[in-house]
C-alpha cells in the first residue's frame, strides 16, 4: 500500500510537469499581446515595451519557462496583468470558494446518487426505477448552465426561496478567513447565522453543478448493483440465511461501489472545470470566474495557474480514489 502511494506520487509529479509544458506552450503561442493590453489603450510603444520587460515577456520562451517553473517551487505563480496582483494571492481568495462549492456538489451527488442507484437496482423496472432512470438520463443530457438558469428562474426569482447568486448577502460580513470556505470558517468562529446563510447561497449552484455527476453515479451504481445482485456469492449469502438488508447494503454495495468510485473520482475532477459555467451563472467568485476573466483578457499567468490547479486537482482526486479502492478491495492492495 505504502509502495503504491510512493509510486503514484512520483508519477503525479511527472504528469504535472508535462501539463506545465503543454499549458505554457499553448498560452504563449496563442495570439494577442498581453503587454499591450496591460499598458492600456493609449499607451505608447515605449510604455508597452516597458511593461513587456517588467513581466519578462521579451525573453526567449525557454528561459521564460525555466523562470516560471522555478517560481512555482517558490510559490510564485506569476502576476495577473488584469488584477495586477500576484496570481498566488488571487487564488488564495478564489480557490477556496470553488473548492467549497465542488465539495458540497460531490457530497450531494454521492449522498443522493448511491442510494438512488441501489433502490433503482433492487426495485428494477418498478416505478421508482423508471423515475430514477428518467431523472438520470436527463441529468446526463441537460446542459449544466441551462439547468442553473432554470433553477435560478424558478426557485430564485419566482418562488424566492433561494438567493440568485453570490456567496453571502451583500450586507453580511464574511467570517474570519481560516480556510477561506465560508461554511467551515463560520462554524469555526461559531457564527451560525453566517453558516446558514452561506449554506443557503450554496444550494442552487451546488445542485446545478452536481446534476451531471449525480446522473452518472446513479447510472453506474444501478448497473453495478444489478450485476452484483445476480452473482453467485449473493446466492450463497441468501442460502446461508443472511438478511436481505445486509445482503444489499453490505455484500452487494461494497462490490458495486468499486466502479462507482471510479466515476465519482472522474466527476469530482471534471466538476472543477464545470465551475467555469456555474460560477458565471451564479456570480460565484471562484476560480472558474477568475479563469474566464483572465482568458478574455489574454492574461497568461492566471490561466496557466488555473490549468495547473485543475490538472493537479484531477490527479489528486484520482490518487485518492486509488487509495480508497485499495481499502475497499483487498485484491487491489498488493498491486501498484
Amino acid at each position: 500500500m505504502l509502495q503504491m502511494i510512493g509510486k503514484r506520487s512520483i508519477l503525479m509529479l511527472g504528469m504535472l510537469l508535462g501539463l506545465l509544458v503543454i499549458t505554457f506552450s499553448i498560452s504563449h503561442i496563442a495570439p494577442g499581446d498581453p503587454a499591450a493590453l496591460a499598458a492600456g489603450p493609449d499607451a505608447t510603444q515605449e510604455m508597452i515595451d516597458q511593461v513587456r520587460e517588467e513581466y519578462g515577456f521579451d525573453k526567449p520562451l525557454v528561459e521564460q519557462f525555466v523562470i516560471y517553473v522555478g517560481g512555482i517551487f517558490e510559490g510564485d505563480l506569476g502576476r495577473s496583468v488584469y488584477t495586477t496582483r500576484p496570481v498566488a494571492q488571487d487564488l488564495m481568495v478564489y480557490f477556496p470558494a470553488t473548492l467549497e462549492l465542488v465539495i458540497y456538489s460531490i457530497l450531494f451527488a454521492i449522498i443522493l446518487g448511491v442510494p438512488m442507484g441501489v433502490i433503482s437496482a433492487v426495485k428494477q423496472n418498478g416505478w421508482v426505477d423508471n423515475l430514477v432512470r428518467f431523472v438520470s438520463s436527463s441529468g446526463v443530457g441537460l446542459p449544466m448552465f441551462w439547468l442553473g438558469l432554470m433553477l435560478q428562474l424558478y426557485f430564485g426569482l419566482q418562488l424566492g426561496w433561494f438567493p440568485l447568486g453570490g456567496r453571502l448577502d451583500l450586507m453580511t460580513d464574511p467570517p474570519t478567513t481560516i480556510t477561506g470556505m465560508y461554511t467551515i470558517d463560520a462554524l469555526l468562529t461559531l457564527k451560525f447565522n453566517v453558516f446558514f446563510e452561506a449554506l443557503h447561497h450554496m444550494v442552487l449552484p451546488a445542485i446545478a453543478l452536481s446534476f451531471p455527476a449525480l446522473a452518472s453515479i446513479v447510472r453506474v451504481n444501478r448497473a453495478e448493483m444489478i450485476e452484483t445482485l445476480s452473482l453467485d456469492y449473493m446466492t450463497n449469502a441468501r442460502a446461508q440465511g443472511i438478511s436481505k438488508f445486509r445482503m444489499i447494503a453490505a455484500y452487494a454495495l461494497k462490490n458495486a461501489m468499486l466502479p462507482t468510485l471510479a466515476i465519482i473520482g472522474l466527476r469530482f475532477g471534471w466538476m472543477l472545470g464545470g465551475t467555469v459555467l456555474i460560477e458565471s451563472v451564479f456570480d460565484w467568485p471562484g476560480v472558474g470566474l477568475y479563469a474566464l476573466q483572465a482568458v478574455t483578457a489574454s492574461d497568461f499567468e492566471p490561466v496557466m495557474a488555473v490549468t495547473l490547479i485543475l490538472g493537479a486537482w484531477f490527479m489528486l482526486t484520482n490518487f485518492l480514489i486509488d487509495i480508497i479502492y485499495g481499502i475497499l478491495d483487498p485484491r487491489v492492495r498488493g498491486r501498484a
Partner: protein
Amino acid sequence: MTDAPVLEIRDYRLNFNTFDGVYHALDGVNLAVGKGQSLGIVGETGCGKSVTVRNVLGLLPSPPAEVVSGEILYNGKDMLKVTPAEMQKIRGIEIAMIFQDPMTYLNPVFTIGTQMVDVILAHQKALDKSVRKNKKQARAHAIEMLRKVHLPNPESQIDRYPHELSGGMRQRVLIAMALSGSPKLLIADEPTTALDVTIQAQILDLIAELVEDMGLSVIIITHDLGVVAKVCDNVAVMYAGQVVEYGTIEEVFGKPKHPYTEGLLKSIPHPGKPPEELYGIPGFLPNLLTPPIGCRFQDRCPKAMEICGTPPKNRNNAAHDRTVLCHLYEEGFEDA
C-alpha cells in the same frame, strides 16, 4: 424407508418464462430423502438437477421461474408456501446448501471470518430476535467450524480474503459456513465439480465424515456417477426435467432398468476398457421449450416402441423403494 422422509418432493413442475417461450424445466419430479440418508441426483448438464433443489430454500427468482404444481415438504411443511420470516429460520439452520464453484461463491471484498460471523449471527437473530450480538463468540464458533473442516491454521486463515485461498480451501470454508448452523439436511450442488481430482476425493471424504459425525441427511447433485456410488445410499437419475429412475445404489447401478440409466452406466470410461468400446448415448437433450409428447427420452432410446409417444407413468416395485419411468415396465417389475 420406515421413518417419514425429511424432505419429500412431490409432483414438482416448474417452468421458466423466457423471451423465447415457456421452458418446461421440471416435469413431475418425485424425490424423497430419509433421516440420516444420503441421496444422489445424477444426470447430464441441463437436466434440471440444480433447479430441483434450488427452491427448497427459495433461491429461484420468480419471475422467470414459475412453480406450476407440486410440493416440497420438509418435515411435512411445504417449502414453496412458507413466509420469508419462516424461511429465514430454515436457511442454514434446518437446511444448508453448498455450491459448485468455490471460486465465485465467496464475497471477494470481505474476509472469511467476516462472512462466517455474519452467517452465524444471522442464524442467531433468525431464531431469537432479542438475542444480543456477540461477535467474539461467533468468531470462536467460526474458528471451531473451520477446524472441523480441516482447514490448516484456522486462527490465522480466518482473517484472509477469499482470493488468498485455493479452490479446495474455499470449498472447505463454504462447507464450514453451511454447517455452522448445525443443519439437519445438507444439499450439495456439484460440490466437487470445479475442483482438481485429488481435491475432489478429499472434499468427498470430508463431506462423508461430517455427515456421519453430525447425523445429517444429504442430497448430493453431480454428474459424476463415481461420487454417488462412493457417498450415497439412494440415487435418482434425472433426464430432461424428470426423474427416470430411483432406487438404492446397488439396485440402480447394479441392475439398471431405464434405458437412459443403462446408457449412462455404459458410458463411464474404465482404465481397462479400450476407448473405442466407450459408449455414447446418441443425440442430444430435447429442447424443453417444446418438449416431446410422451417419453422425453424416446428419440435417443435404443428400445423405443410405438407406445413411447404417450407419457409413461411411474412404476414401483412391490417394496416401493424403486421407481422407473418407462413403458417397458408397464406390467410392473420385481427386483431381479
